[in-house]
């Protein structure tokens, strides 16, 4: 938006590409004619339209994921100029003001790459399964209205409910490592997913899942299985893996108080552990 000193004709975008899972990755640079108010998604659309590198050689269009285009779905999350964020809300003018040379795009480093900038974030959702991040309702009986929820609790829970499972928190987390199993020739999708899930057992849940635990434990009905969720948090790969680097809260696009959730989960698990010892 701001007209920076010399008028820009074009700018370069360097992209870390990978043609499929387990393939070698490579850098490719693309030259984009400048126009104001671009975002990274529109840049990727332009690259897809020409599919030519800056040197002019033909290449495959860069693959990426996107959906809502308003920073509420998390699908277009990638590493832009070294920092994880959503590409829909990453504005080219701002990126060029920060680092005038070029824009650098990489897939998230903590998830298996599907192709180019598309990653498989299913570990995030399996983590939600581990902590049962839902309200268990297993019948259709009318039980009347639920209990009243104090305003204060609503205000505490609402920000946590904004989580879109985008993966920024775990991408920036120095305690969260990538877990990737490669699909064997002729292996079924089920068996491949099963092996991936097994490889993730005992690996860190990550901030998002810990925060969701607090969200659902504070829910009047969801809290009925609070102890089961705390058991999941104290299992291998649980909250104890947290190293308090607090990058999660710094990069969260929804500004969810993740470190408060983590500290509260720490308090709850402490009491849970003591209770389990003495209430046997």
């Amino acid at each position: 938006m701001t007209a920076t000193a010399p008028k820009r004709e074009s700018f370069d975008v360097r992209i870390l590409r990978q043609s499929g899972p387990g393939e070698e990755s490579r850098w490719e640079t693309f030259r984009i004619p400048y126009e104001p108010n671009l975002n990274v998604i529109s840049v990727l659309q332009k690259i897809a339209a020409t599919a030519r590198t800056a040197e002019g050689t033909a290449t495959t269009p860069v693959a990426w994921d996107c959906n809502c285009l308003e920073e509420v779905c998390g699908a277009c999350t990638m590493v832009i100029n070294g920092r994880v964020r959503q590409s829909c809300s990453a504005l080219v003018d701002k990126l060029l003001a920060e680092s005038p040379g070029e824009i650098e795009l990489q897939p998230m480093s903590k998830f298996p790459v599907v192709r180019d900038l598309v990653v498989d974030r299913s570990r995030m959702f399996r983590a939600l399964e581990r902590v049962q991040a839902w309200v268990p309702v297993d019948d259709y009986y009318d039980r009347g209205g639920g209990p009243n929820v104090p305003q204060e609790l609503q205000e505490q829970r609402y920000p946590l409910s904004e989580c879109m499972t985008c993966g920024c928190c775990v991408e920036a987390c120095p305690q969260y490592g990538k877990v990737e199993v490669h699909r064997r020739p002729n292996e079924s999708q089920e068996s491949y997913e099963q092996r991936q899930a097994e490889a993730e057992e005992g690996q860190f849940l990550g901030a998002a899942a810990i925060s969701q635990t607090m969200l659902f434990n504070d829910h009047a009905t969801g809290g009925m299985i609070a102890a089961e969720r705390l058991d999941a948090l104290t299992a291998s790969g649980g909250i104890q893996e947290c190293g308090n680097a607090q990058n999660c809260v710094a990069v969260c696009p929804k500004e969810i108080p993740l470190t408060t959730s983590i500290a509260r989960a720490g308090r709850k698990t402490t009491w849970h552990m003591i209770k389990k010892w003495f209430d046997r």
Partner: protein
Amino acid sequence: MAATEPSFFVRHEFLIRRLHSLTGIVFGAYVCVHLLTNASILAGSEAFQNNVYRIHGIGAILPVIEWVFIFLPILFHAFVGIAITAGMIPNNQNYPYGANWRYTVQRITGLYLFFFVFYHVFHMHGWFHFDWWLKIAEPWGGAQFKPYNAASTAGLALQNTLVAFLYALGVLAAAFHFFNGIWTAGITWGIWTRPLAQSRALNVCLAGSVVLGCIGLSAIWGARQVGRGEALEAARATEDRMYDFRVEAGLVQADSHKRSEDEESGSGEIAATPVVETRRSSDSGE
């Protein structure tokens, strides 16, 4: 869930990490006492020697206290800490936030302290106090500190500039590691949960680490002053006077392990009474 039973460490990961937090606090509390005692050398070799006598006055139970509250906690803390550090994926360049730097520095200081504490305990204490072991350790520069010649032997041991530099680094690393550890422990155990509480706690902890670092550095400086020239002679004279008085009064048993041998030790070796303890400690007074 999986077919194979997970290992002991995996099943008890939560408890191990909480014990790691707890042992860090226990050992850190000891380090505070240790550095404060050492800094009393600034009040003169007599004050320091008196503090060391007070600690060694605990008697036969001292090795038990040492092992339960100092050695076992730090050994557990150190080895679990190494395992934790091995799993880190630092990313300070891309995410240069304060807490992320403290995360990385916590692990770097931890690694330094791992080696430093082993070296330091060998250098001053000797690790073990069996006669046959001391015969090996002393020529290698171990077991330099003699609790009944506290100021002079500590001062002599720190005369080497490189050694003093390693000690200064160790003291600063310990001061940061302990107080930053208190801050993260406050989150781990859920004592401070909200951002404002955490930032207040952080300020208190950082101030604490600066104070502890200064105490430690001044103790090193004080010891170096006592360990040379006239001050050394004066300190030895004071220590001998205090030792002879205490032996005479029956306050301490004559014990060659706790004295420096090159000095006049007439009363010491001859009067050596049969002492049952095998492991004589000096740690708390170094």
